[in-house]
């Protein structure tokens, strides 16, 4: 089963981190990649640019409205994601605990809807 891991973190707090602290975070992600890679379960994953770069688009009655900023203003913002193949939710929860973002932010696990089984 595929699960999407949405990593939410406080952008403002991230921006104030020192070079050393950022180095530690990158190191932690490197360690996760090192563990995840060989399993062949990593189907995808990226870090995102801050929400200051976000653009939201809504089309209503054929009319497109394009606005600056993310879909919702929240205390923690979407900062990255993984797509991982897991046996079940327990395995997914274990991977989530290993994502560094879950230690100072929140990781939301979403099972991917399998469209191939729908008739």
């Amino acid at each position, binding site marked *: 089963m595929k699960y999407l891991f949405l990593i939410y973190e406080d952008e403002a707090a991230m921006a104030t981190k020192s070079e050393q602290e950022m180095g530690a975070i990158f190191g932690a992600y490197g360690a996760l990649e090192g563990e995840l890679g060989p399993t062949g379960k990593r189907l995808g994953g990226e870090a995102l640019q801050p929400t200051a770069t976000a653009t939201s688009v809504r089309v209503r009655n054929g009319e497109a409205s394009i606005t600056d900023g993310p879909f919702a203003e929240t205390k923690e913002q979407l900062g990255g994601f993984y797509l991982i193949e897991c046996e*079940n*939710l327990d395995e997914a*929860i274990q991977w989530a605990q290993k994502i560094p973002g879950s230690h100072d932010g929140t990781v939301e*696990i979403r099972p991917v809807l*399998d469209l191939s089984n729908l*008739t």
Partner: protein
Amino acid sequence: MYLAGLTDTARTVERVFREEHGRVLASLIRVLGDFDLAEDSLSDALSRALELWPAQGVPERPAAWITTTARNRAIDRLRHDRMRRDKAGALRRLTELRTDAAAEPSAVGEFPDERLRLVFTCCHPALDRASQVALTLRTLGGLTTPEIARAFLVNETTMAQRIVRVKRKIRDAAIPYAVPDPERLASRTAAVLEVVYLVFNEGYAATAGDALVRRELCEEAIRLARLLVQLLPGDTEVEGLLALMLLHDARRDARTDADGQLLTLENQDRALWNRERITEGVAILDHALARGSAGPYQIQAAVSALHNQATEAAETDWSQIAGLYGALLRLRPSPVVALNRAVAVAMADGPERGLALLETLAADPRLQAYQPFYAARADLLRRAGRPTDAAPDYRRALALTQNATERAYLAGRLASCTTPLAEQHAGRVVAGRVESVHVGPSHEFSKCEVPEIELVAGRGVAGDAHCGETVKHRSRVARDPTQPNLRQVHLLHAELFDELAAKGFTIADGQIGENITTRGLQLLALPTGAELHIGATAVVRVTGLRNPCAQLDALQHGLMAAVLDRTPAGELVRKSGVMGVVVTAGTVSAGDAIRVEQPAGPHRPLERV
């Protein structure tokens, strides 16, 4: 005869299904990997049993019959269901089971107990607590959705939707149907125990609802705990919880009076306690305690056991209970446990020791609206010979109590700690003190309690809407705004609140608009012109009685009448405190002493101002 036979069989069918429900359902879910299909097939099997058993007789091994029938029905359902995603796998497993003679359930004990997996799935941390409870009761308890809805006072549709939603999440998020790894077993077991204890407490804490349904919930929780003891023999906290529930439940019949009101431990008839349950609970607890360090459930069970083993309240071993609460506090720090410990210490070593412990708790925001805190502190203050300090706590506790028995108890205690108002009219003025101070920056009726207020000479309370040299009360302003302000400070005796509380009004200090709440001072009997020296410097000259206004009734119906009396001669007596003007400025705060200086000349009783 035939009819009697039919009824008997129907009863047998019901009994067998109730007893075997959890086990058969768990095994079906395991094979089918699908809650709904398992439940539907089991309910098909129930219909078949009701059809066949009356005519053919109850099968020799009813549980095995139910399992086989349900599996066959599952095969039929799978074959007819084109929409199902994983039907091939489930069908294959079922067919294998059918052809594999060894797997055929020949007797109940011979197929593996899958209920433990089911427990962990139902209580998975990815599910919300209310859903965990509902699903556990539904699958392992075999309670119907309407029964669960009734027990938790939610409507049936809401409960049905909750169960549909949780089963869908288990399926779609792929919550595994498995016993957790050893490293996670303890924490996952703790979550299961929380669910079971929540079921028990829902039935035990007589909040609301049908007494019979509540009793069944307790029985169900105990039954689930017995099952868990059997399935998880390595975890002593499981036994701790079972013992705790048995020991609590032993007091069930003694917990309420004839009117259904709760009775505290010391007021219960101990002859009504269920000795059999106590013996069993204590034995289970001892078995757990002998095998390692005690966890929170075992400690709570030990407290309960000490209460249960005392033949009368006075014989309770409070010092041991205080020690147990101390141990519990180290494992699970919480203000409520700390409160229980303070009460036990007070029972063992005297009220002063308990009060010292409560002092450190008084500022905890979690206890600000916690009735047992005020009730406990009031009792300790009273026992320590400080009735004047106990009265405000009894009043606060009373305001937070709905239970009629407890209200009657608290009102009685409050009355014993307060000077009756009748004496106040006749009595003589001596001295008193400030219980609390309040300020109301707008013309709203109620004022807010503050640590201190500033009295300004000739004007009143700094920051209060009624502060000024000329009249401020809006009704008076409308008549003549140039009149001098004789109502700068409103003082009210707390004894009025005590009297009102006993009559069922729950009024907090400041709520009916006074600036200074006094205690021990017979305000209404003061002569006009008396000067109150409050705190270090402030002096207030009393100008007259407050005239109760109709806004009182808006606060609580009937309050206006309650603060008015008539003398035997039919004259109106106003009891809602006095008004005064500030002669000398100063700061006033709770606890300040009040000294009264009588005016020169003849005594002029206070009149309405």
